[in-house]
C-alpha cells in the first residue's frame, strides 16, 4: 500500500490520536518556506502510540508485523519537544509506515510498546538512556549501551560533556 | 529411538562427509601455499592505496581546504605569506587520529596533497605519530634575513605603541601583550 492508502485505512479504522500527516512539500519562496524533502510521516499523540501500534499490527490490511525502529530526535536546544520516531514494516504487504510523535522535553513519558513488539525492548532502552524518555511499563529499564551509572542523556542537544568519569579525565 | 536405517545412515553420513572434507583439505595440503613471506617479498601496492600522505609543498597555497574537510581535524597547517612566497610554520598530520578516509585529498584546489603508498606506522612513542609533512621551509636565506629585519622593526614599533598605550590606559595592557605574543 502507498502511504496515502495507509493513512486512509488508519482513518477508516478510527485510529486514536492521529494529529495530522506530515508530508514533504516543495520550497515556497513567497512565504520563505524552505520546504521539506524526504518521506511522509503520520503525526500522532504520544499517549496513543501503543494503541496505534496495536492497530497497525493486527489489522489485516496494514499488518505491520515488524517494528523496525523506535528512536527519538532532539531537533534543537530551544525546541520544547522531542520527536519520537517509529518505523514499521509489513513483510506480507511490503509497505512501510513512519510515525512521529512530539513529546515535551519537560516530562518525556511514553507508554512502552514492549507488549506489542518484543523488538521495542532494546530500542526503548537505548532511547531512554540517550534521550531521557521514560517508557512506562518497560520490563527491563536499564541502560543498554552506556554504563549503569552514567549521568545525563548524551544525545540531547543540551547535553554537557562530562570532564571526568570515575577519576579519568576526558578532556 | 532411532530406526536402524537412521542409525546406520548416521554412521554412513558421518564417515562419508568426513572423507569428503578430508579430500578437500588433503588437496590443499598438497598444493603450494598462497601467502607471500612478508618482509622478504611484498605484494604490489595499487596506485590508489591510501597510505601516509605526502605533500607537494611548492604547489600548496595554505588555503586550509584539506584541514576543513578532515572529519577529525587532524591536519594542522600554518604559513606566513610574503608576497608570493610562503614561509611554512607548520603542516602536521596527526596519525593517531587520521582514519585514512582520503577526504582531505579531494577538496584541494591545487591538487597538492596525496595519499602515498607508505603504510608502516611503527614508532616507539605516540607523539612521533604527529607527522611533519613539510620538506622545506619555503624561503631563500636572503628573504629570511629581510623578513627577520622587517619583523624586528615591526616588533619594535609595536612595542613602542604598546608602551604608549600602556601609559595612556593601563587597562588595555593585557590585549596589547597578547598581540605581541601572537606575532612572536
Amino acid at each position, binding site marked *: 500500500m502507498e502511504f496515502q492508502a495507509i493513512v486512509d485505512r488508519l482513518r477508516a479504522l478510527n485510529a486514536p490520536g492521529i494529529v495530522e500527516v506530515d508530508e514533504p512539500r516543495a520550497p515556497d519562496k513567497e512565504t520563505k518556506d*524552505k520546504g521539506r524533502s524526504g*518521506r511522509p510521516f503520520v503525526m500522532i499523540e504520544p499517549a496513543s502510540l501503543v494503541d496505534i501500534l496495536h492497530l497497525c499490527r493486527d489489522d489485516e490490511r496494514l499488518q505491520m508485523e515488524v517494528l523496525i525502529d523506535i528512536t527519538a530526535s532532539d531537533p534543537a536546544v530551544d525546541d520544547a519537544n522531542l520527536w519520537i520516531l517509529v518505523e514499521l514494516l509489513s513483510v506480507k504487504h511490503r509497505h512501510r509506515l*513512519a510515525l512521529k510523535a512530539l513529546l515535551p522535553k519537560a516530562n518525556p513519558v511514553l507508554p512502552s510498546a514492549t507488549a506489542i513488539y518484543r523488538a521495542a525492548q532494546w530500542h526503548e532502552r537505548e532511547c531512554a538512556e540517550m534521550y531521557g524518555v521514560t517508557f512506562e511499563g518497560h520490563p527491563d529499564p536499564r541502560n543498554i549501551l552506556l554504563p549503569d551509572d552514567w549521568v545525563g542523556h548524551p544525545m540531547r542537544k543540551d547535553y554537557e560533556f562530562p570532564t571526568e568519569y570515575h577519576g579519568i579525565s576526558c578532556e | 529411538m532411532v530406526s536402524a536405517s537412521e542409525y546406520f545412515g548416521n554412521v554412513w553420513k558421518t564417515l562419508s562427509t568426513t572423507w569428503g572434507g578430508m579430500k578437500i583439505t588433503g588437496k590443499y595440503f598438497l598444493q603450494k601455499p598462497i601467502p607471500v613471506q612478508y618482509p622478504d617479498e611484498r605484494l604490489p601496492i595499487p596506485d590508489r*592505496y*591510501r597510505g601516509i600522505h605526502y605533500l607537494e609543498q611548492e604547489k600548496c597555497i595554505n588555503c586550509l581546504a584539506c584541514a576543513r574537510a578532515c572529519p577529525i581535524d587532524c591536519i594542522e597547517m600554518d604559513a606566513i605569506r610574503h608576497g608570493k612566497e610562503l614561509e611554512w610554520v607548520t603542516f602536521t598530520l596527526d596519525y593517531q587520529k587520521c582514519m*585514512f578516509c582520503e*577526504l582531505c585529498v579531494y577538496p584541494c584546489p591545487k591538487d597538492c596533497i596525496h595519499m602515498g603508498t607508505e603504510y608502516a606506522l611503527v614508532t616507539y612513542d605516540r607523539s612521533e605519530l604527529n607527522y611533519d609533512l613539510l620538506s622545506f621551509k619555503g624561503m631563500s636565506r636572503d628573504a629570511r634575513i629581510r623578513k627577520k629585519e622587517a619583523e624586528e622593526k615591526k616588533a619594535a614599533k609595536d612595542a613602542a605603541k604598546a608602551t604608549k598605550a600602556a601609559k595612556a590606559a593601563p587597562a588595555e595592557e593585557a590585549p596589547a601583550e597578547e598581540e605581541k605574543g601572537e606575532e612572536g
Partner: protein
Amino acid sequence: MTDLKQQHTPSIQPSSEEERILPSGEREFFFDVSTSDLEINMGPQHPATHGVMRVLLRTDGELVTGAQPHLGYLHRCAEKIGENVEWLQYLPYTDRYDYLSAMNNNLGYSLAVESLMPELEIPRRATLIRTICAELNRIASALIAYGTYGLDIGAFTPFFYAFREREWIQALFEKICGARLTYSFIRIGGVFNDAPPGWLKEVGMFCDVFEEKWREYYDLLVENHLFVMRTKDIGIISEEMAYDFGLTGPMLRGSGVDFDLRRDMPYMDYKEIWDAGVYQIPLGRGEKGTTGDCWDRFYVRVQEMMESIKIVRYCLEVIEAGPVIGDVPKVIKVPPGEGYVGIENPRGELGHYVHSDGGKIAVRCRVRAPSFVNLAVLEDLMPGTLLADSVAIIGSTDIVVGETDR
C-alpha cells in the same frame, strides 16, 4: 528478561537433613545436596563473542538456563558524531560500525542523504559500480560469517579458505578505492572514483574462481554431518518470533520468510536486476532439521554468496562508460527534511534516519543497526541449550559488535 538474580532458581531446592520412616518401618535419611546454578561471564573477551560483547550465562552443568547479553563495550557514539560533523565527513564513520560490510554502510548512508536531495541525479555507471561493490562486500561479509561460524563450531580450516577469497575481494577494493576495510568509497551523489582499467575484468575473473571454491565450502562445512548435527534443531526462530523481535535479513529468511529489501522494496537498480531474473532469494526450509534453526540461517548466508555473484555478473554485463558522480558541491548542504532509507545489509535492514534543517550538519543521524536488533533474540534462544550450543547460536546471529554498540 529481568535481572538474572531475580530469576535465580536452584535446580534442587536446598533443604536440611530429613528423616523419613518408610512403610516397612525402616528409617531413611536424606541428605539433600544443595546445588545452585553457575553464573558464567562469557566475554567481554571470549573467542566466541565476535568482539567485545558480554553474555552472562546461567548454567546448570552443561545446560544453559539463562542468558543475558550486555552491550556497550564498543560504544563509540556514532550517532552523536553524526550530529557534529558535515554530511560528507560522516561518511568515514559509517565504515566503522559494521566494519565487515563498510560498502553497504556507505551505501545506506548515501542513499538516505540522497533521499533528501530530490534534484540530485545519480549516474547509471555510479549505480552499477555501487551495486558491484555492495554485492562483493556482501560476499566478503558472508565469507566471514561462514569462516567464523566454522570456528565457533570448532572447524578451523574453513576460516582460512574463506579468508583466502575474502583477501581477493579486499584486494579488488584496494584497487578501486585504496582501502581494504574502511572504504569510504560510495559517497553522496555517486562514488569517489571510477573503476581503474582492468578492474571490472578482474571482478569477472573473481566470479569464475569463486563459484568453484564455493562448492568446496559447501562440501567442507555445510554438508558435513558433524556440523549438521551441531547446528540443526538449535536456536529455532519461528516465523512469529522473528516478526516479534523485528529480525531482518538472513535471520528472517532463515525462518522461512520470503522477504528481501532488494526485491521487495527495491533501491538503486535492484528492481531492474530482479526483473531480469538474475537472482533468487534463498530461504531456510528446514532441510536438515526444523525451519529457522542455526543450520538454516547459515545455509541462507552461504547461498546468498552465490546470488550476489549472479548480481555482480549481471552488472558487469550491462555496465557502460560514463560519469560516476552526480552534481554535488564540495561542501554539501542538504535541503531540510527527514528521511529514512533501509537497505539490505548482509546482516539485515540497515536503516539510516537522517534529519536535516538545511545546514551543513545533520540534526539527527540515526542508525538502525541490524546486529543490534538481531542480538535481542539471544535472550530467548539460549535457555535450554547446551553450553556449546550457546556458542553456535551467537555465531548464527552473525553479529558485528561494532554495529550493535555503534
